[in-house]
């Protein structure tokens, strides 16, 4: 203990910053300072745009557009009932539900057909052979009649006012083409793994996307719960072969000049993986899409031609820098620390843990500040030390692995998440 204190005393502020340069150069400005700045900006904006919201809300209720809720999925039959139930309880009722069963092998067909017969869903569409999530979503889009399309995962359930809230932004600004809903974890209590994801969702989705949206660089409308103008979806011809098709779709819509918006108050609950192994598989899939879509498919975002859009450029650059570049730069940082301070590595680890815990706590305070249910969330402070390992190590390792594999082997084309037939075609055409 004595030695620990004297070591840090000896280092002084300058040494402290030198050792944790990675934090002070990248992470502190991005995840703490920027977030607080954005929060302040958001609150400021909200105060003055409140009247706009009220007007938009009035306009929505006056026009009452038909909303088509598309729910593609495979083997999701067991979730249908809960989803339909949560939709029946919505405050906004002018919608049609379109369930798309992508070659399920379980009882989905029976359950879906029953719901269709009972008139609880408008369409239950089923393909005997699996075509992949994009094709299922496109099928739903093809047979939808709504002006607004909501894409929703079958394992989601919406809070009663979620649908009404997610529609409001479309009436605030005609240029808004897509609105993302806020996602919270339903199975918060299942395991330490889901508790950590709960915090992560609060930080990266609730706060992170709110920030991105406020800055105008929101680059993903989550597939789990997002709303689109049908016109925008039709202009981009719907979804392309995944993985990560929601990010790809959002980018395509942005490229057409539409704005994207994140609606903090429209909340859907989703189930997350309960074990770290399952979580790792999910995240590998998500991370690959960064390479496949940002680097390959949408590389023209970096071209300085007449289509160049500074916001799209910033949006993607931010994404690539903080997710991709920093992931690998971090190894360099570790190398730097290990070689320069090999004697006192233990002191640095302990201090690092303390520093990051404090930093995470400060970050999480924004979540609490924004929340209506502050007291329920306070207890998550106790998970902050664990969060340091979760985002700092676990997520980073999973990402590195996914990026490397995708860069070298293009493994997303072999992922069984898509049927082989579509991956093969996509691979041949390099899309």
């Amino acid at each position, binding site marked *: 203990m004595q030695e620990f204190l004297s070591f840090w005393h000896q280092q002084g502020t300058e040494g402290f910053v030198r050792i944790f340069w990675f934090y002070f150069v990248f992470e502190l400005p991005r995840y703490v300072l920027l977030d607080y700045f954005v929060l302040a900006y958001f609150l400021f904006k909200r105060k003055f745009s409140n009247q706009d919201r009220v007007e938009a809300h009035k306009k929505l209720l006056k026009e009452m557009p038909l909303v088509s809720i598309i729910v593609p999925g495979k083997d999701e039959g067991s979730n249908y009932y809960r989803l339909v139930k949560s939709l029946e309880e919505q405050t906004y009722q002018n919608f049609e539900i379109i369930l798309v069963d992508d070659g399920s092998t379980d009882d989905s067909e029976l359950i879906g057909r029953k719901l269709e017969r009972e008139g609880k869903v408008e369409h239950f569409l089923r393909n005997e052979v699996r*075509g992949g999530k994009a094709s299922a979503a496109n099928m739903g889009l*093809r047979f939808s009649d709504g002006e607004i399309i909501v894409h929703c995962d079958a394992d989601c359930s919406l809070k009663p006012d979620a649908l009404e809230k997610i529609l409001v932004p479309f009436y605030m600004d005609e240029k808004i083409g897509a609105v993302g809903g806020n996602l919270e974890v339903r199975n918060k209590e299942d395991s330490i793994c889901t508790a950590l994801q709960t915090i992560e969702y609060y930080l990266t989705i609730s706060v992170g996307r709110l920030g991105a949206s406020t800055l105008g660089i929101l680059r993903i409308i989550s597939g789990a719960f997002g709303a689109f103008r049908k016109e925008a979806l039709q202009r981009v011809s719907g979804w392309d072969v995944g993985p990560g098709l929601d990010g790809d779709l959002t980018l395509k819509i942005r490229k057409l000049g539409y704005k994207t918006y994140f609606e903090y108050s429209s909340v859907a609950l989703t189930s997350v993986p309960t074990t770290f192994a399952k979580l790792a598989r999910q995240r590998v899939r998500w991370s690959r899409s960064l390479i496949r879509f940002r680097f390959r498919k949408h590389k023209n975002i970096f071209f300085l031609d007449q289509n160049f859009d500074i916001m799209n450029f910033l949006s993607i650059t931010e994404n690539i820098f903080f997710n991709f570049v920093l992931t690998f730069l971090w190894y360099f940082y570790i190398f730097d620390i290990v070689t320069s301070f090999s004697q006192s590595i233990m002191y640095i680890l302990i201090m690092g843990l303390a520093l990051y815990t404090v930093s995470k706590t400060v970050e999480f305070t924004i979540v609490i500040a924004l929340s209506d249910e502050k007291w329920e969330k306070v207890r998550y402070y106790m998970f902050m030390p664990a969060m340091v390992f979760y985002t700092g190590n676990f997520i980073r390792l999973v990402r590195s692995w996914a990026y490397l594999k995708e860069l070298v082997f293009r493994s997303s084309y072999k992922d069984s998440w898509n049927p082989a037939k579509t991956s093969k075609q996509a691979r041949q055409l390099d899309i």
Partner: protein
Amino acid sequence: MRLNCLIVDSDKSSKELLSDLIQRNSSQLKLIGSSESGREALGFFYRHQIDLIFLNVELEDMSGFEFMDEIDASEDIQTILYSEKGDYALQAFEYGVTDYLKKPFSYARFNKAINRASEVVRNVTDFEDLENILLEKVLKYMYTREIDLLSPIAVRDAKLGFIYPMLSTNLEFDEEQKALKILNAAEQEDLLTGEFVESLYLCNTCSNAYMHFRESCPFCSSTNLRTEDLIHHFPCAYVGPASDFESENERGNMVCPKCSRYLKHIGVDYDKPSVMYNCMNCDHSFQDPLVKAKCNNCGSDTRVEHLTKSTIKAYRMTELGEDVAMGKQTVRLKGFDELSEVMDMSYFRKILQQEIERLEEADLHTTIARIRFNNLPELFKETGESMQKDLVRELYEVITENIPVSDLAVFNDMITVLMLFADKDTGKAESIVNEITVIMKELVADNFHGFELDTDPKIEPVRSGASAQDIISELTENRQEV
């Protein structure tokens, strides 16, 4: 057909009153004779063909019941029993009388009694005139022509698509299905043994075998549907009907409307994962049409799931059958009017009357309940007559299984059931009725794709001094208000 009547009554004025009533109903009744003593009446009875006896319980030389013992009152004879005192209802029923009247009775009440009698006689005679005679003919035909196996013959014009020699030719087109009923009943009576030949779906309403089977829109029932393959283009994940891929400029080539690539080869760059139906009437798109069968005889349109399967068999004669053919035995088929027990109002009325009288003597609680199934006609629309009967019978069984043995239930009509709870107050009756309602709802929901039975129960205490008929009509007549 008029019924031959006999009056047996020691009271002269009463006898005259009855003969007067019979004259007034001369279209239905024919008075053959009347008698003031039991002995005399017996002699008369054996010398004449009598269909209906009006019998006073209180005779001078014997009781009405003794009289019935003497004539061994068989099913063929209808008896309308009446008395001054009116406490013989249960006993009268045990003798299987057609009706029991308590004097004084109204003309309307009398009419009801004779209507019952003529109805029963009509059933019995129809039975003898048709089913049994036909069966006898068939058996004789098989015996004399030495036909081992009576096989159905496929005939395009026949209602069932098959005819049985001798049998079907004697039936009108509208009742050709009776051939199956007769043969089935004969098999149950061990006159014939059947071997499976074919199974058929017959129209639920008219038993016609010729039906069109076709898909219809689940929303508007129109059969004007268009089907189209869906195409999934792998490279861009576009999914849409084949017509989306038709190109205007180049015939024969399919072009993806999303990515403008030509479709090359099915299974390589695209496939057809399913079929869409589009209703030309209401423009709804769906994948799961209702398959319905439309009868080309009566026009009823039924979901195939609701059709019932019939079996066509070939028949061999049993030894018992040969005996009948040779005249050693007579044919007597039963069980054609299967709902008589379920809808036996007269018995119910009698017991109710008894209860009312019991109430006058002792301080008891008896409750009568009615449940009406308001939306049962909706189900009946879908199903045929035989299934309607099956359903009513099944409901009846559920009720009788779930009420205490001392209590009674009867269907007043196809959608209304009456229950009599002896020695039970309304509270107890209500809990039993609720229990039964739950079970019946489950039964209907299980059998008819979640159909929600709408039940309308009404529970009332039985008051002493009222007449059974009044109570029943009061409970059942309310239906007009709904």
